[in-house]
């Protein structure tokens, strides 16, 4: 099995599993309980919090609140900010956000909010002048991702934060789900107020995420109930998962060299673009402006779903656009925003390399893929 779908989810790292294992067997208890078992669990949670805080360069571990996933973090951030500023009815976001932000903003429009959707150019990049002009006195929130899940294009979080601070009183939320563990992040030196991450994108298990809430930023709970997380997120803490997230962050920090991953991605990307004539890269060619692990490639006149299925048959796992789309069939809004023509967008495949891929796997992929594509081109009613 060759897994090139690490932006969809990642394997639990053995180090992470080892850290979690005792918390699924010999240790148990509710971290809210004051007895010995509860205290042990609480310590484990606090240690994990420190690990998360260091990976993303938070000033204080207290700024980390554990959640159940990236989507919850995003929903909470947006809903929480707006609840504290009922008089401000303007939100700025982009056309290429993940659904966890995009669909909340669509819902906001239905509720009467005015949403400015910033576009991107053909490279998938923002126009910061457009952002500057979008900010208004009644802008409550700016929500802009750090790394795009489909193309891997990075947005300049530091500059954006600067502009938001300088030009408005808006809260700045960053969806960092795809970036954490892949690029260095230091929130304490950026004007970022809220920052979402999700464990399963960096070799922690599925079912745990976090929201960074900068000290001093007011954010009412999204889930009400008990006093967990200093009253910021109710629900018994998912200790095994949180321990796993801590271990994954520690792994990413200590063993966070992406040179190998990047070289594999480059090998794959170069191989495809050079070897397959109808292949086109989506997103900026300059690799310093993209995640080190992601290549989104369109194969003209061919359907992404059938490429995926042929690769699957050969034991190679990839995504069409974003994995989350796979049970719906609408064209990817990100590629649409980039003005990728329809006949290309339909044939787009996301390759996302990870910690456990090898050069051999990339070679196999580069051997298998061209045959599949030429077979499909032959079958295409639109290619000549």
């Amino acid at each position, binding site marked *: 099995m060759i897994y090139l779908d690490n932006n969809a989810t990642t394997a639990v790292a053995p180090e992470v599993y080892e850290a979690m294992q005792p918390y699924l067997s010999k240790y148990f208890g509710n971290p809210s309980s004051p007895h010995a078992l509860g205290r042990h669990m609480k310590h484990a949670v606090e240690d994990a919090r420190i690990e998360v805080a260091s990976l993303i360069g938070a000033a204080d571990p207290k700024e980390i609140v554990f959640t159940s996933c990236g989507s919850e973090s995003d929903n909470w951030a947006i809903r929480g900010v707006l609840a504290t500023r009922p008089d401000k009815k303007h939100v700025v976001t982009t056309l290429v956000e993940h659904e966890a932000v995009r669909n909340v903003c669509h819902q906001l429009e239905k509720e009467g909010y005015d949403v400015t959707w910033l576009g991107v150019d053909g490279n998938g990049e923002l126009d910061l002048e457009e952002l500057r002009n979008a900010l208004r006195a009644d802008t409550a929130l700016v929500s802009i991702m750090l790394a795009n899940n489909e193309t891997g294009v990075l947005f300049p979080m530091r500059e954006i934060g600067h502009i938001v601070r300088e030009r408005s009183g808006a809260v700045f939320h960053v969806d960092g789900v795809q970036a954490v563990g892949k690029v260095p992040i230091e929130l304490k030196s950026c004007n970022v107020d809220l920052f979402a991450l999700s464990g399963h994108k960096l070799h922690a298990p599925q079912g745990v995420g976090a929201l960074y809430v900068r000290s001093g930023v007011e954010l009412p709970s999204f889930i009400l109930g008990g006093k967990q997380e200093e009253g910021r997120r109710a629900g018994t803490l998912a200790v095994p998962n949180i321990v796993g997230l801590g271990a994954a962050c520690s792994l990413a920090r200590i063993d966070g060299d992406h040179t190998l991953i990047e070289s594999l991605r480059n090998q794959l990307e170069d191989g495809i673009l050079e070897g397959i004539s109808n292949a086109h890269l989506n997103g900026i060619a300059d690799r310093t402006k993209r995640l080190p692990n992601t290549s989104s490639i369109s194969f003209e006149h061919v*359907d992404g779903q059938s490429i995926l299925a*042929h690769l699957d048959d050969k034991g190679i796992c990839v995504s069409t656009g974003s994995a989350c789309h796979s049970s719906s069939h609408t064209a990817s809004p990100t590629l649409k925003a980039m003005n990728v023509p329809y006949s290309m967008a339909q044939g787009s495949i996301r390759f996302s390399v990870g910690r456990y891929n090898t050069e051999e796997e990339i070679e196999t992929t580069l051997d298998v893929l061209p045959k599949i594509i030429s077979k499909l081109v032959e*079958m*295409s009613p639109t290619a000549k």
Partner: protein
Amino acid sequence: MIETLKDHFLNPRNVGEADEPRFTGRAGSFVCGAAARLSVQLDESHNVTEARFKAAGCEVLIASLSILTERVRGKTTTDAALMGQHPETLAVELSVEKDKVHCVQLACDALVAAICEYSDVARNEWIGEEALICTCFFVSEQTIEREIRDKGLTTVSEVTRACNAGGGCGSCQPLIVELLEASWD
């Protein structure tokens, strides 16, 4: 995914274009972005001698086209059209999930469209005494008019139930509508 479907997707039969005389149907969906083209070659007795397709789309679309092009070979245009009219039968046979039924439908649509193309041509070329409306079931204008008049029919499906006309590829349905409208005057 059942084995037949997988097999037909990975090793699609009948890719390409049928030889002349060739009748071609197209289908496409802006929702999923799929496109299909299916062509049939017919002999003088209106039997399909060859069916071929081209497509860009998902496994289900491609497998359905591969299966349909295999199955229609040797069939009459009428039977071919009827096969295309029942995508749900094929979907059940292939255990296709609910949200993929529309891909089977697309394949069937392409088949029906090909037969329609033939029917339109055949109708125009018909040189019999009475005008031929439904080439699938070989029903003349007079027969349809009589059925409408005698039984007081008012809809296409009533006509189809009465004399089959319109129940194959469907290309004659607009003509049946005209006859119905004429009878009201």
